[in-house]
């Protein structure tokens, strides 16, 4: 199983995402922002960071990177894509996922071990969890407030497309405590918290995040 991890200028957690893919048993393949070649990968992770400095608006410039043309095309055809933090912001800017991420209501960057509830355990990236499970993974973002219009929020709820929700307190003012959402086919998932930082209790709050990466391998039926 080859999982591409994109490096944009300003990507920071690309190494961590690649490590998480390896921990799950996959092969991490580096993808460069300036090339539209996806090198035959079976899935793509858009990692956290500050692509292009997040100047203008988070994810707004990365969306136009050559690699994103291919990611968007393939995602519409079912390629599993996981956007973490800045990756989620890029997916929202690219309209692969609905809604937008705005400045935290607390108006500061928030870095903490965050409790989440897995709401949808049927996506390509969450099938190894049971629905309703409480997990703890790091959240670290300044612009993580999820917003969308009421109709969109209602549709997401109705279609079960809220993938993870904040519990034990809303850290950033996200509407309906939404931490992550998915595409209609459940193949594209974006979330603000960082599952790749919760794969080893030595360096994270635990191993609750590894399930995102093992889920992919399970759902693709090809654990290497």
């Amino acid at each position: 199983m080859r999982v591409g991890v994109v490096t944009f200028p300003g990507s920071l957690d690309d190494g961590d995402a690649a490590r998480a893919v390896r921990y799950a048993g996959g092969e991490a393949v580096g993808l460069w922002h300036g090339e539209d070649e996806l090198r035959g990968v079976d899935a793509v992770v858009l990692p956290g960071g500050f692509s292009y400095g997040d100047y203008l608006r988070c994810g707004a410039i990365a969306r136009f990177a050559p690699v994103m043309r291919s990611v968007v095309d393939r995602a519409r055809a079912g390629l599993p894509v996981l956007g973490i933090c800045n990756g989620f912001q890029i997916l929202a800017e690219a309209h692969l996922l609905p809604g937008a991420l705005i400045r935290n209501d607390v108006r500061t960057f928030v870095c903490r071990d965050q409790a989440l509830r897995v709401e949808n355990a049927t996506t390509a990236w969450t099938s190894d969890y049971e629905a309703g499970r409480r997990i703890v993974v790091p959240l670290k973002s300044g612009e993580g407030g999820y917003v969308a219009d009421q109709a969109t929020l209602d549709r997401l709820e109705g279609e079960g497309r809220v993938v993870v929700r904040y519990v034990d307190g809303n850290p950033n003012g996200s509407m309906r405590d939404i931490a992550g959402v998915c595409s209609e086919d459940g193949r594209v998932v974006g979330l603000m918290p960082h599952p790749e930082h919760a794969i080893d209790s030595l360096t994270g709050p635990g191993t609750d995040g590894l399930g995102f990466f093992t889920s992919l391998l399970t759902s693709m039926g090809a654990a290497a």
Partner: protein
Amino acid sequence: MSPDTVQRAARTPDEPQPWADLGLKEDEYARIREHLGRRPTSSELAMYSVMWSEHCSYKSSKVHLRQFGEKAPQTDALLVGIGENAGVVDVGQGYAVTFKVESHNHPSYVEPYQGAATGVGGIVRDILAMGARPVAVLDPLRFGPLEAPDTLRVLPGVVAGIGGYGNCLGLPTVGGEVVFDPSYAGNPLVNALCVGVMRREDIQRSAASGVGNLVVLYGAKTGGDGIGGVSVLASETFTDTGPTKRPSVQVGDPFTEKLLIECTLELYAAGLVVGIQDLGGAGLSCATSEMASAGTGGMRVELDKVPLRDQTLAPEEILMSESQERMMAVVEPAKIDAFLAVCAKWDVLATVLGEVTDTGRLVITWHGETVVDVPPRTVAHEGPVYHRPYERPSWQDSLQADDPSRLARPSTPDDLRATVLRLAGSPNLADRSWVTDQYDRFVLGNTVLAQPEDSGVVRLDEQSGLGVAVATDCNGRFAKLDPYEGARLALAESYRNVATVGARPLAVTNCLNFGSPEDPEIMWQFAEAVRGLADGCLELGVPVTGGNVSFYNQTGETAILPTPVVGVLGVLDDVARRTPSGFRTPGQVIYLLGETRDELAGSEWAHVVHGHLGGLPPRCDLQAERELADILVNASRDGLIDAAHDLSDGGLAQALVEACLRYGVGARVWLPDGLDPFVGLFSESQARAVVAVPRSEEVRFTDMCTARRFPHVRVGVVDDGGPDGAALDVQGLFRIPLDELRAVHEATLPASLATPTTPR
């Protein structure tokens, strides 16, 4: 306007020059003329003024700092010592680690966000220039009283600036300090420490070597920011009157710095760099003169080739600009194409400015005309050296005589309980999450421990588990009571913090923050602190690898507490063996290590409850510190302890509060027989720690302490409280439920600093 050329300077020897406005003294100006045999051009004057500033030349501190070399302990660990951008130590398995702490105090007062942000950026480039990948940052910060209006201006900006820059750069912030004291009200201290790692053979030097090799400037364009930053900002005392100095503060772009890091590491890996230096204080003046004097001896630079953000900049301004995110490299001509290709890959602008020569002169031209022609050593290394007068302050005796024995002490169980709570919620001891939650501690995936742990611990090698621990400490009140002992106590605490997590202390960096060196009493504080630190490092066997001096930290006549911040770096052969600070497993036995004496002078209790500072600081026994460190490191390696927490500010009471709140697991504690409960709870005696020992290891652990004749006493058990809930229960005195303790401990900073939110 035509530039002031060397030819013109020779023709117009008597032309008046603004040396005083540039911060030079009359004799210094005379000395420049002597070096050159003529008046300097305006460009040369600009270079000398910034390079001979206190900040760059260490002219007041040099004669004292020599002790760090003269008294250096014998060690095989030191690969690069004082004098380079940062010192480098051998941490084993082929790895070398470089670390250094620097100040950005004045810019952070003027413009908190950018001042703090560029403080991080500057130290990160120092580490990068040594050949290392930066891997972690720590931020020792000091502010005026928490409730002071200006603190509410400065602190949020500083914290947001550190977070905004460090987070965007992708470096975990793993530790530091947040200290409040009235003396920092008009003069906050913003120090930043960076740690970097490389293979031993990959150490880079900042020398312009090899005649004909090319001098390349790469990174951001040069703008008007930070011009005169070093001379005007860093070397003059703030006064209430006078023009605003905001334009002298640099503006940071962490995104460019991130690209600069990745680009530079790729250049190193491809073997494309002969010599390298970052551009920080004094900008191009510093990089050209230092690299030239460290190398073959000469350099020719075409200044008009420098890419500019502002086309109106004059050559003097370009030489002084402190625009951030710039590096200078020396590259062999045959490799320049490859060098430029790597820069292009990372969208980093790179420009060949000139070449290395063997003329012994640094020659800088502006559109073909020579504006600088100097022996580079006279700029970089042969600046003035002052033997400033120093004198023990007239008030030192009365300060030391005013010991805290006359202060009312709590004696009833209720009073003791209330004091524990009051201290736990006091600004210096309260939970720091409001600050530290604004820093990314996870990025890079190697952070094993971060604040509020005793030290930050980062893994260097995923296979072997090799890692380093770093802590910074200083109690400025102790340093005021006795600067010599205060510096040794800062070293002792930092050393102890590193050992507490299980790391073997290896090397020291320091950031010496003091008032004006022109005041003999301040100079005495400085001289005493340096002497104390050098003596202490020799006694503990840990060399000073580098550091930074920040003078003129005062507002008007009022100086800050003398604040020699000491950073200690230690090594863990396997970070999986690190010892965290929190109690976790009920039933484990709590031991207090070390000797407790009636030592309350300069303590947090005296400060919070009585607003008192006087007496002599706690005794500093470095031999005991060394023995304690040995026990903590060996106990970690042998798996004898599950938690350890150092005793410092607030004494045993605060250490227990923190160890209980970390994981929400309580403790039942009995104070040692014969010890006054107040002294037992609040004394700040040194060389102490609490540890949690699994019962299965208790005999081995106590045998180890006994064999070393180190004082150890069983003071309690880790306890989840059963049906009553977790609590800190000091038997026979009081019981405080952890919920109550947590509420007090966590409320203080947000109550002053948090902004209200409105629901979406």
